[in-house]
């Protein structure tokens, strides 16, 4: 559609682009800083001279992290948890959000309260831990996949999305044509919900990718350890060195700073790659009955 932009609108556009460009540099800087720091020498970082460019480029921190033989195993574990976990998340969350988005579902408010309540009240770490043990999930991969299977927050967001974007009329016409709820969900609702599904995928996948605490408390078999847990161990160890006057006091401990940055890069880079794939689902406007670019 072509229409003439008013002067005001043109000015706004220029201003907008300017603002966003400046914003981009401001947002980019933290990651840039982390990247160059991870490649700089410990001494350069120690003296605070690393600001815009790496100094004394070396890969020591990366070497240290990758010299840990279990790191590749940990990477594949994380991929497993992210893949399978996200699928479980999406299925369950959708199965929860869709019925609750339907106006004609009796008791939906009660069920909503039931779910929302869990966002505020929790038994606490120890009962939760004991519960997982009682369920027989200790030291198994299921302990990573099941206890966090549904996020109430995500469920609420998805439900809101269904409520506000799926017209009732569509669902009615589906029912008139004799479609079952499952078919309606699959063929009508989901194709129109690509944006929210993309967001949910992103949220859940990132949550799995970053998680380490559950693994730490529920897993004993190191073969199941995810990447973040391993990285955290490496980081914690290099930091305790700094404090202790005891064992290890003779070493140059400054490499811990570079390790800190390297672990962030190693952990974050893969995620950054996902987003462009999901982005196309955020395109403005989703045509009825189809996906448009």
């Amino acid at each position, binding site marked *: 559609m072509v229409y003439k932009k008013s002067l005001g609108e043109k000015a706004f556009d220029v201003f907008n682009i300017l603002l966003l460009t400046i914003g981009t540099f401001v947002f980019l800087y933290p990651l840039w800083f982390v990247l160059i720091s991870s490649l700089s020498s410990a001494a350069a970082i120690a003296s605070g001279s690393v600001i815009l460019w790496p100094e004394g480029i070396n890969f020591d921190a990366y070497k240290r992290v990758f010299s840990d033989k279990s790191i590749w195993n940990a990477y594949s574990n994380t991929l497993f948890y992210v893949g399978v976990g996200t699928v479980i998340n999406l299925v369950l969350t959708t199965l929860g959000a869709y019925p609750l988005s339907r106006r004609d579902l009796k008791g939906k408010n009660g069920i909503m309260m039931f779910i929302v309540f869990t966002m505020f009240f929790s038994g606490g770490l120890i009962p939760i831990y004991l519960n997982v043990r009682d369920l027989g999930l200790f030291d198994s991969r299921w302990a990573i996949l099941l206890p966090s299977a549904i996020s109430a927050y995500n469920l609420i967001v998805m439900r809101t999305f269904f409520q506000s974007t799926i017209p009732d009329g569509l669902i009615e016409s589906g029912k008139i044509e004799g479609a079952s709820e499952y078919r309606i969900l699959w063929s009508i609702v989901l194709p129109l919900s690509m944006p929210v599904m993309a967001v949910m995928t992103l949220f859940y996948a990132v949550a799995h990718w970053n998680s380490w605490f559950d693994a730490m408390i529920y897993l004993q078999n190191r073969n199941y350890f995810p990447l973040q847990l391993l990285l955290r161990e490496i980081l914690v160890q290099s930091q305790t060195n700094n404090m202790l006057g005891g064992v290890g*006091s003779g070493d140059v401990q400054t490499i811990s700073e570079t390790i800190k940055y390297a672990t962030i890069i190693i952990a974050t880079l893969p995620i950054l790659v996902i987003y462009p794939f999901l982005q196309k689902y955020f395109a403005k406007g989703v045509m009825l009955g189809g996906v448009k670019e």
Partner: protein
Amino acid sequence: MVLILVLVISACSNNNGGNKGKTEEVPSPPASEAPGTEKGEDAYLPLVAEPLKLTAWTLINGNFRGENNNEKPSFKKMQELTNIEIDWTMASAANPVESFNLLMAGGQLPDMVDYNAMLTEGPKYGQQGAFVDLTKYIDEYAPNFKKILDENPEVKRLITTAEGQIFHFPQLNLSEYLLVQMFPQVRQDWLEKLKLEEPKTTDDWYNMLKAFKENDPNGNGKADEIPFVSVNLQNMMKTFAPAFGTDWEFYVDNGKVKFGPNEPKYKDALQYLNKLYMEGLIDPNYLVDTEFKFLTEKVTTDRAGAWVGWSGSYMTSFTDLMKDHAGFKIAGTETPIGPDGTQRYGYHGWPVGSVGVAISAKSKNIIEAVKWLDFQYSEESIMLNNFGVEGVSYEMVDGYPKFMDVVFNNPAGLSSTESLLSFTIGGGSWATVTDERYQEQYDIENAKVAKNKVSKHINYDISMPPFALSTAQNEIVVPLLADIRTFRDEYANQFVMGKRTFDKYDQFVEQLKKMNIDKVIEVYQEAYDEYMTRS
């Protein structure tokens, strides 16, 4: 969503306390003082006739690049000697407090539990029935440990509860050398350049810092020197407050428990620091720059003149980082002497560390576990735990256990710590006697000199021992102390930085009274008195 975060900073540093007997002799190396039995083959080995397996839980030390403690030659040798094999559960140390608490909550403990805060947690859980009261077993089954307890009454005091129970085997620092890990450090090359002596009194310190500020010792023409850097006010107070006869925390004055900020002399210490601050002799950013990396930056950019720090990660690291800087040298100094001649070193460690191993009350092999843990204090095992296996990681050179190249110049590029931990558990983080000869090999020459100087000024009569309060006592004290310490921190910084003038000092004291400091002191006094009667 309401996750309960329990955060206890387990002091891996030796900030414990105990009165070390009345004799202040310089301890001889443990080898000749060894509480073990005859030299060489201990007559009571192996500990069991038939091979036995015991289970143990421990946190994997981050510097240990292997996966199981049994990979270490020291434990392999121990198994040969004792006929006991240990089945280790190596827990992740990503969050040690939670890991330990969850282990305890799970209710199914292995035979032995090794934890780095066992000094406080052992008695706590022991009294709830989790751990065995060892007093019944020591006389008969733990000859090595018994001997140590007999010869070191303050060790016994520190690990015994008010009811006379002992719930764990602790890590021990019997040599004074190990008790002094932190001390004031000064740019020795700057002293030489400005023709100054090492500062002895608080006035000397003032003059030295002033000279650093005004006379451009780093020679770059700019007055960018920061004479004294500290990562927090606490370190500064611990260094200077004893010179004025006071303390940042609790201390003992002729048997009476006192709280530093509650005493008049505390004002003198604050005023001294305030003077330093107002004249720009203290880093104006000390409150913000609390990370180690800031101090590192100031040292490596040739600006910091003096600071307080560890012998290893500060002194050795800095020297290494500045090896390309001509003439860079750090000297460790004694803590300052006050206007009336008082001198005291206020942040020493204690004979008992916080690491320890406890035995589960439900273990089916209590006696064997006691024997195995007692073995850790035998002469032979002390060598295994601190140095590894002879000929593999160390050699005896003129009667001194010297680490071999594989430790300090590891061919695979491991750091010396990582390397050492592949051979043994590390004397500083296990229930054994830590041998200062291992620490000596890590310290640079200047550090050794400093440690020997500083250790002369430990005063065990004044320092407050790190005994644990009972649950009932904690109930009264903890909520009050949380408020009192917040108050103290805020006001101390305000006084030092000049935001609050000293004519308002009385308000500070009054407020402390209102916060019930007297009640707190009363409880501590009661606990201290009881502690001193323990035998």
